């Protein structure tokens, strides 16, 4: 129905024609780690630097994102949350994802993408509801056109394809941006999602945040392909790799993939090279599997530092900007502190309310049983060790 047969050579008679699908030889970089414009050569197809206003907006989002990570890490240490998977060091990928999308577009995040979720305008306390352990999901995906952060790896990529497919069938110009990690690219669902997207030619941009690790497992045990972006060619979609700590390059590469998808150009795969600066979650201890020296190499590549230098050097970061941005980050941090320090009240009857649209007779009975127990003031801790 929706293939693009001009790209296909299943008869086997055409010449080698996959070049246009291959990623650039090195990750696209527009701003060097030291904040200077990257030299020619890291470019491909002349991606160009976004304008200063956009970069300034992006810088603000990065600073807020970092503050979110820092504040959340502190709150989880203080026992105000069940778990927090920090994205410190990876914020540029999430910020770029948000900035490339319109409100009517959809984002499908993973568990590590709280910064991106907040960037979509999700109410912070809704965004943190699952991490604080109150409920499995705290926000309405339709209100923000944002999927729920998904734990079973790579499964959300198929939901992204479905959302895009539905929109396309209705003739809407929605684009869907789906995030996953390097580890998730090994799952069967990754393969099926990319293939479905390509065959149905739907507007999905897949962004692999390659942060070099899947918990403790380094990329070398995950894949021996030239790059993860090279997987694109096997689906007949273009692949690209980009410096995931360079917000400018991310905006250029993702932005062009998103607009190409919007124009009916079909899906694309983007691999962003970044690094998870902290442990997998607060429950993990990254020192068990990687050296401090390795982590130290990534410190100077930090996405915030680089953009700050670039903007400052270009004279686009006035003291007023810095102050405003710091205030905005602080105000977000305060929202998180206040919200997460406040006690929430949960209704145990909710356990039965939503499993089906109408609770089944069985669930009504079970709900009554629990209500009776609670009314009788039973201790419920017996089962906990």
């Amino acid at each position: 129905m929706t293939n693009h047969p001009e790209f296909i050579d299943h008869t086997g008679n055409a010449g080698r024609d996959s070049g246009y699908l291959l990623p650039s030889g090195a990750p696209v970089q527009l701003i060097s780690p030291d904040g200077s414009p990257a030299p020619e050569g890291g470019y491909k197809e002349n991606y160009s630097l976004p304008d200063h206003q956009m970069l300034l907006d992006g810088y603000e989002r990065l600073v807020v994102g970092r503050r979110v990570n820092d504040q959340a890490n502190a709150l989880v240490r203080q026992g105000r949350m069940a778990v927090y998977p920090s994205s410190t060091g990876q914020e540029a990928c999430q910020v770029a994802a948000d900035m490339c999308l319109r409100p009517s577009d959809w984002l499908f995040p993973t568990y590590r993408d709280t910064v991106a979720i907040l960037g979509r305008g999700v109410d912070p306390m809704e965004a943190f509801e699952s991490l604080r352990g109150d409920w499995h999901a705290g926000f309405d995906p339709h209100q923000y056109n944002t999927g729920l952060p998904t734990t079973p790896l790579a499964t959300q990529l198929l939901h992204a394809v479905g959302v895009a497919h539905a929109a396309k069938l209705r003739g809407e110009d929605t684009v869907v941006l789906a995030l996953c990690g390097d580890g998730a690219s090994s799952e069967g669902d990754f393969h099926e999602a990319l293939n479905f997207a390509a065959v149905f030619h739907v507007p999905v941009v897949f962004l692999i945040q390659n942060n070099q690790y899947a918990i403790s497992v380094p990329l070398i045990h995950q894949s021996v392909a030239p790059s993860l972006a090279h997987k694109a060619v096997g689906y007949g979609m273009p692949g690209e790799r980009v410096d995931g700590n360079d917000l400018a390059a991310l905006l250029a590469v993702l932005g062009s993939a998103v607009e190409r998808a919007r124009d009916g150009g079909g899906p694309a795969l983007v691999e962003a090279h970044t690094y998870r600066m902290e442990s997998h979650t607060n429950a993990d201890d990254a020192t068990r599997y990687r050296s401090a020296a390795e982590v130290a190499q990534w410190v100077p590549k930090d996405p915030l530092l680089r953009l700050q230098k670039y903007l400052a050097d270009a004279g686009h970061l006035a003291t007023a900007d810095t102050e405003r941005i710091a205030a905005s980050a602080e105000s977000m941090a305060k929202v998180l502190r206040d919200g997460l320090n406040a006690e929430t009240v949960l209704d145990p009857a909710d356990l039965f309310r939503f499993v089906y649209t109408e609770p089944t007779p069985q669930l009504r009975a079970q709900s009554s049983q629990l209500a009776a127990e609670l009314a009788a003031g039973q201790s419920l801790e017996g089962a906990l060790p």
Partner: protein
Amino acid sequence: MTTMAHKAQAETPAAEAELSGVQTITFAKALTLAMSDAMAADAAVLVFGEDVGTLGGVFRVTDGLTRRFGEDRCFDTPLAESGIVGMATGMAINGMKPIVEMQFDAFAYPAFEQITSHVAKMGNRTRGRVRLPLVIRIPYAGGIGGVEHHCDSSEAYYVHTPGLTVLTPSTVTDAYIMLRDAIASPDPVVFMEPKKLYFSKDTVDLDALRARYAAGSTAPSTIGRAAIAREGTDATLIAYGPSMAAALAAAETAAAEGRSLQVIDVRSLVPYDDETISAAVRSTGRAVVIAEAPGFASMAAEIAARIQERCFHSLAAPVLRVTGFDIPYPAPRLEKHYLPGVDRILDAVDELQWEES
């Protein structure tokens, strides 16, 4: 970009002469009609899966849907079941009502994670903010001489998973109305179709069936409602789907021998109709549960456990089970030994301690 509006124009409404009135049709045709009527009524209803388009499905259940509704409404997918269910989930999130076909029971297993961790949980996870009105059709069970992996009775996996509605019709009428009820449900339905019934026939009044789904109709949904397939007073046989024929035949044979057996068609496995089934068993005091799946930790186990919990003091004998053995489904030439047949059911009935009553 091809839009649905565009396709609707291209559609030739008279392409398929649709049946109406009183007709003798197969179980498979009833399913086809349920889908095509639902598709005609609601542009959000889509059908997709492996071989469901041009071919019309390996059992021809989707035959004609692509011709009638176009390739945007009924189409083939790449060969990947997790992909099919996962994409359907996304489409359901975004306003569609997909009906997907798993080609055979065992070939739904690659989709198990999507079904269990997403389809089943989405409504609850989102506190009801995202409902997934999707139907996963699964041809299941044996009795057709099918080779390995083509005859699993896999319903236990789904009924055990909270959040799924699990239905299985056993009559031509139920094939139509239960599938329409499934499509109309705001919740995800695993719709299990007994393969060996696909080519069974019955005469039905299509106009009457359709009227149930007309605007303003107050016809009750079959979801959550068991059916009393035969009245009887001495003992209750409880079966569903592929085992209904044997249960009814057993009751017929028993009647000739002077024993009156009531037969219940559970048909809605989840939600389960405790009310009807418990009342039935209380009325007879004896029960045999019949199902083709291996019995261990199965739907039949649940039925037996529930009945003894609820009807203990009405029972003259334990609730017995006649199920498939706890073995992989056999090769074609041995399946007759596996399937719960009339004699095995009557043996169980004989064991219901009649001497004591």
